[in-house]
């Protein structure tokens, strides 16, 4: 009597398992990467809002000729507050702030020939840490804004 068996061999089974593990791993890695990318995009948008708010402040000071400080380096600011109460109270550190950034600005007077107007160049930038692959804070990233403000005498 000849018995023919048509099952899978051990090697075939192991190869199938390796393929399944590889596919599952890539799906999970993809989900984690997408999550981090979305979170980084969200923080980037919030950082831009914080920077544009600061720029609006500086434009007001320049336009009114009442500059509080011409240059500030790496002032600690909160990019992302936990609650509206934290934002109103200005809790830049501790539990009130989810993401911290560092703001710098520089206001320069530009020489012009006009006696009726003057131009001031405002440069501001914000630095914060990107979220890396494993959800930890990774490398620094910076966003800059340059504005030229015309001031009539």
């Amino acid at each position, binding site marked *: *009597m*000849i*018995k*023919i*068996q*048509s*099952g899978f061999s051990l090697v075939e089974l192991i190869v199938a398992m390796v393929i*399944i593990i590889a596919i*599952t791993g890539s*799906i999970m890695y993809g*989900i984690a990467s997408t*999550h981090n990318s*979305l979170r980084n995009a969200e923080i980037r948008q919030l950082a831009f*809002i914080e920077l544009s*708010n*600061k720029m*609006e*402040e500086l*434009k*007001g*000071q320049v*336009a*009114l*000729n*009442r500059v*509080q400080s011409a240059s500030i380096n790496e002032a600690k600011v909160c990019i992302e*507050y*936990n*609650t*509206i*109460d*934290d*934002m*109103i109270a200005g809790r830049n550190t501790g539990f009130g702030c989810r993401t911290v950034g560092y703001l710098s600005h520089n206001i320069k007077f530009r020489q012009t020939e006009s006696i009726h107007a003057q131009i001031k160049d405002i440069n501001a930038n914000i630095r914060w840490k990107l979220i890396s692959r494993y959800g930890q804070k990774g490398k620094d990233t910076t966003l800059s804004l340059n504005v030229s403000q015309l001031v009539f005498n």
Partner: protein
Amino acid sequence: MKKYIKITNGFSILELMVAMLISSILVGGLAYVVSEANFFLSKQLYRGKVNRYGNAVMHEIFSTTINANFVNIENTDQIICGFRTNQSSLDSLKIYEHRRNDGVLINGKPIENLNFYSKDNNKNFYMEITDFQGKHTFDGQGYNADVRDAVIDILLGIKLHYTRGNKKIMEEFPFKKTIFTRFAAVYNSSKEIDE
């Protein structure tokens, strides 16, 4: 002598059991991943709607305030912008205020082309305004009066409520917009006197 050949084409009960176990683990894992992805997508969709609403409100107030001839933030939870077409008194007013379940209103009406997902009309998720106010960016002593009056912060707090099964989830979204009210620079007579 007769020769018999036995060909086994089907699966044994053991093979079937192992196959079923592996398939159920795979299907279970896949179902979990799909449900997680679905929840994540829904959550992002809700969050996107809140962010879109908050940013659009801020943009609306910003574009009104920078062109207004008069801005008043002294009333609690109210921002008043006045406009004039000549040198006399104000022609029109735009009053921003809020209602917890109706969102931010302009002169008592909801902002056009902007969806506020209220509790009454939505089951899966809804928004709620928790705070809406204007305040001076430079408050307190040590700041120049012109700058203090001209630069304001508009603050808006929105709570997002949604469910996952029987679990209720709440997230807070704080929004802030700093605005330099341009009229202060144009119509500021004290600046000339000081200089």
